[in-house]
């Protein structure tokens, strides 16, 4: 078979074969079909195409209805039974939402109220109430927000109430002072001794270790011979011995039984006593409980519970000194630290935890405050208390305190006095002596007097007297006597000096300090006879020891 001759593909024939005439064919086919079926549907109006079937086919309808009425079991199970209450999955959340919605609605109501120029809204409504549920806030403290000061703090108080308030203020200050003075010494930050090198430390540790080992070895060596010497063989127990043991045991048992019976009968006999004891114990317990309740109440009245790291420190009361009492509002020196007062009140009521700063000023300023607060006619009182604390004469204390400041303060003082006395009497000695002498250095006459009176009380034997003189107490007392302006100070100084002068060596030291001149230059007074007697006593002492007193 021969090959078909290759014809040109670029010809007209080839081109015609490649063009599709499908759409044209389709159209012709469709149009012919339409023509057979009776015209194209696109050109026909809608009404002629469809119609609503208004004829009724009841049977069909009934059938459909029936189908619809029937509830499938799946659905019937899920339908709500009116007699069974539904259990909500989370009731709380639901109710919360409702409340919120209600609140929002209320807010809207509030916002609807016409506003004033300032944009303020009567938040309590017109009747001063809004129906929102209030949160129960527990009252933090029973202390009132604004505490009215005692009548003694009036700008022009009556004498008695003023004295009471002053005494209270002074006693508070003095308590602080005494606590500072008589409290135990703080632990020193540095310890005396030489610094140890790092290298030495290792050596020391090594030494210690070897010692321990040696000891252990020694011990084990010591034990060994003892164990070796112990007889390994156990002795045989004879029948006689066994019998003896049994009898003994029986006897013991019987004795114990008898004892028990006796005890029991005794107990029965003393039943009323036991009952009484129990009653007493109960009473004690109740009393203790009562005491606790009372003390807690008292404490809560005065200061807040411990709310933080720092303790609450009450502010000192604002009392006028008796010199400042003018009776005139114009000259009144008012309190200038009211901001602190308010802040303290916040702390006192427990609204904020006390801070370190607000407590610290007390200790810093206490001495200054003290010298500020004490007025002249109170000095005697304070001094008496000073004496009380040192000698811890409780009977005297009670009497005095009762007379001057009343019951409550008495209690406080009795407490502190016994506390102080028990704690510090063993240490009363050099330390206190130093402090008393240093009190003499203070410029305030009150402190000088305190120091002097204490020194007079310390100077009981020769040793202590000499000690005082060595510390420089004698010289200071003389200085005090020389510079004293009022009689009481002079008297105290003289008293202390005469107490010192009972030892010969102290007199010598005083003489060398130029005591005679100072003593002689002290003016005599007619009001206080004691000064005269002290003076003459002292001079007599000097005379006895053959010092020249004729200057």
């Amino acid at each position: 078979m021969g090959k078909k001759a290759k014809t040109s593909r670029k010809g007209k024939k080839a081109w015609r074969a490649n063009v599709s005439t499908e759409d044209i064919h389709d159209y012709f086919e469709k149009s012919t079909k339409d023509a057979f079926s009776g015209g194209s549907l696109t050109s026909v109006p809608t009404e002629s195409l469809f119609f609503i079937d208004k004829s009724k086919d009841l049977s069909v309808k009934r059938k459909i209805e029936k189908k619809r009425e029937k509830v499938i079991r799946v659905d019937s199970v899920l339908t709500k039974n009116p007699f069974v209450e539904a259990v909500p999955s989370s009731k709380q959340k639901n109710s919360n939402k409702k409340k919120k919605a209600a609140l929002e609605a209320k807010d809207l109501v509030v916002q609807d109220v016409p506003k004033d120029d300032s944009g303020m809204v009567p938040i309590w409504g017109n009747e001063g109430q809004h129906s929102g549920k209030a949160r129960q806030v527990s009252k933090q403290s029973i202390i009132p927000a604004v505490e009215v000061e005692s009548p003694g703090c009036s700008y022009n108080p009556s004498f008695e109430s003023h004295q009471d308030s002053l005494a209270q203020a002074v006693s508070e200050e003095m308590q602080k002072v005494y606590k500072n003075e008589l409290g135990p010494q703080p632990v020193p930050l540095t310890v005396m001794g030489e610094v140890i090198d790092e290298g030495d430390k290792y050596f020391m540790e090594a030494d210690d270790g070897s010692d321990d080992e040696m000891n252990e070895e020694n011990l084990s060596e010591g034990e060994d011979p003892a164990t070796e010497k112990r007889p390994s063989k156990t002795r045989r127990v004879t029948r006689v011995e066994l019998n003896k043991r049994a009898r003994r045991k029986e006897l013991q048992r019987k004795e114990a039984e008898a004892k028990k019976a006796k005890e029991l009968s005794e107990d029965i006999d003393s039943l009323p006593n036991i009952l009484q004891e129990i009653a007493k114990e109960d009473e004690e317990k109740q009393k203790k409980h009562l005491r606790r309740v009372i003390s807690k109440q008292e404490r809560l009245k005065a200061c807040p519970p411990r709310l933080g790291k720092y303790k609450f420190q009450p502010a000192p009361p604002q009392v006028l000194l008796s010199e400042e009492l003018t009776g005139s509002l114009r000259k009144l020196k008012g309190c200038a630290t009211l901001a602190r007062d308010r802040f303290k009140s916040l702390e006192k009521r427990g609204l904020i935890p006390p801070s370190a700063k607000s407590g610290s000023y007390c200790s810093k300023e206490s001495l200054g405050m003290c010298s500020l607060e004490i007025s002249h006619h109170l000095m005697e009182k304070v001094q008496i208390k000073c004496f009380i604390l040192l000698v811890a004469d409780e009977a005297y204390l009670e009497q005095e305190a009762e007379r001057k400041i009343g019951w409550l303060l008495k209690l406080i003082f009795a407490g502190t006095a016994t506390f102080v006395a028990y704690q510090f009497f063993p240490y009363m000695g050099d330390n206190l002596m130093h402090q008393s002498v240093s009190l003499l250095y203070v410029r305030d006459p009150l402190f000088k007097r305190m120091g002097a009176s204490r020194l007079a009380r310390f100077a009981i034997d020769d040793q202590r007297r000499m000690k005082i003189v060595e510390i420089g107490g004698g010289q200071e007392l003389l200085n005090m006597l020389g510079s004293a302006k009022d009689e009481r100070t002079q008297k105290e100084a003289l008293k202390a000096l005469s107490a010192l002068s009972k030892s010969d060596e102290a007199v010598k030291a005083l003489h060398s300090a130029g005591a005679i001149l100072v003593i002689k230059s002290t003016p005599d007074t007619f009001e206080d006879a004691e000064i005269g007697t002290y003076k003459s006593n002292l001079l007599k002492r000097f005379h006895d020891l053959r010092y020249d007193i004729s200057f």
Partner: protein
Amino acid sequence: MGKPKHYRPPGKKKEGNAARYVTRSQAIKILQVSLSDFRKLCIHKGVFPREPKKKVKGNHHTYYHLKDVMYILHDPLLEKFREIRAYQKKIKKAKAKKNDELARLLLSRAPSYKLDMVIRDRYPTFVDALRDLDDPITMVHLFAMLPAIDRLKIEAKRIHNCRRLCHEWQAYISRTHKLRKVFVAVKGIYYQAEVDGQKITWLAPHARQQVLTDDVDFNVMLTFLEFYEALLGFVNFQLYHSINVKYPPILDPRLEALAADLYALSRYFDANYRASVQEPQVTGSSRSEQEQEECDLRLAQLQHQLPANEPGALMHLVQNAASEIEEDEATKDCKKLFQNKKIFLSREVPRESLLFVIPAFGGIVSWEGDGAPFTGADDSITHQIVDRPTQGHVYLSREYVQPQWVYDSVNARIILPTEPYMVGRDPPPHLSPFIDDEAEGYVPDYAKTIKQLQAAAKTDVQPLPGMGNDDLDNSQNMLAEGYISRTEAMEAAEKKQQMMLLEKQYHDDLKMELQGVSTINKQSSAESLPDAQQIAIDIEDPSRLMMSRKKRGLAIAIEMGKQRKKDQVEKLKERKRNIEAARKSEKKHKKAQLS
């Protein structure tokens, strides 16, 4: 059956104090705010630290109740604070990038928060707010006197606001005559007012420079102040509306410039009152009548409704009505005290306080300076308040008294004789009206004098010759009586008083004896059986039976406190008796010497 025990992952959920209380740092962690914001939130929401019985985390921590923390957590304020913090960061960033314009723009649109919802939440009724008003008013008064210091962030604007608020408050109190007590102490002036049956006590500092010490945390103070300012604003608003006055008062700028705010406010009140309250005042009387009728009607109805065995409720209702009238009387009393008195204040007296107090008790007051209602040369002035050693120019028509006269008169509710308060004299002691002498038991001398004067004023009978009365009598009387007769009268009075005392003591003794007998009886019964004592106590006070142990303890504690107080009073009295006896014997001695 006990509680079912659930599995608890270790360290997660606990019971008791460990679960109920959280430390401050834990609370901050829960709330996701900074410490300063937490402190602010606590103050605004009224959440304060508590002391748990068992401090789980140690003694040095501050504890908060978990419920309180949750209460803060659900407050919209918390979200607002966070928003503000984020916004502050934006501003800071803009500033750091030297984008000043953006920073300014941001600053002008900074979000702020309002405390009205918080206040409404904390004080659901107006009375609640009034009950807690002591601290806010005191704080606002204090800050009104403080200097503005940038370092402590005390702005001048806030101080002015405080001044405005306390003037508004004082103006209301003064206008409605609600002030009851005044006490001038070293710290400042204590006032007590009664609003809606609530006693509100506050302390206003003296007009002197206040010192700001560094031990006071002013951040805390300013946060408290912020809340209190808002609260006092709303309270003032409510109070002003209750008397039909528009709240942010519009003041006369001239008076405001002269720092006479209080007077300006009172003028504003007058103007507003005349305009708006005329009608209610007219209808006031008829309204009260109506109320009376209504009350009667209600009573009649109630009588039908109530069962026969419940008369208590009815009594209560009547008492309520009575108390309302009584309160009105108290205000009436206060209103009338300085009526028809025209008082002029000298330069040196505390003007602010007196301008507040005198109108509160119905007086007309003026002062030296511009803008005053009348000048010092006015003839109709009845009293002039001065506080200087001597008064140069004296009008005969008026009396010159020291400021204490006003305060003492106010406390005594009568016009006290002016003689002891004259210029240059040492005035009698200024007694505290906050001390109830009867309860305390001990009555100072001057208080007795005042009491006699009060009794005299009430009954309009000549006062009995007493301790302090003689200097209060008319000078004519004194002349007539003569010196000797007066001393005799005094002695007679003393005798009488002593007789009274003895009589009282006798009565007391009698009572004591009676009680003593009964106690002895009880003791004898107590000895027979330990339980008998308890029974006796129970019989003595049946209410105690019902109390819990704790409450019983408290009751006993209260009794003990009372006893203590009584003892102290006895002591004071005895002391006084001794002093008097000593004085008397001295006097007799002197007489004997003289003769």
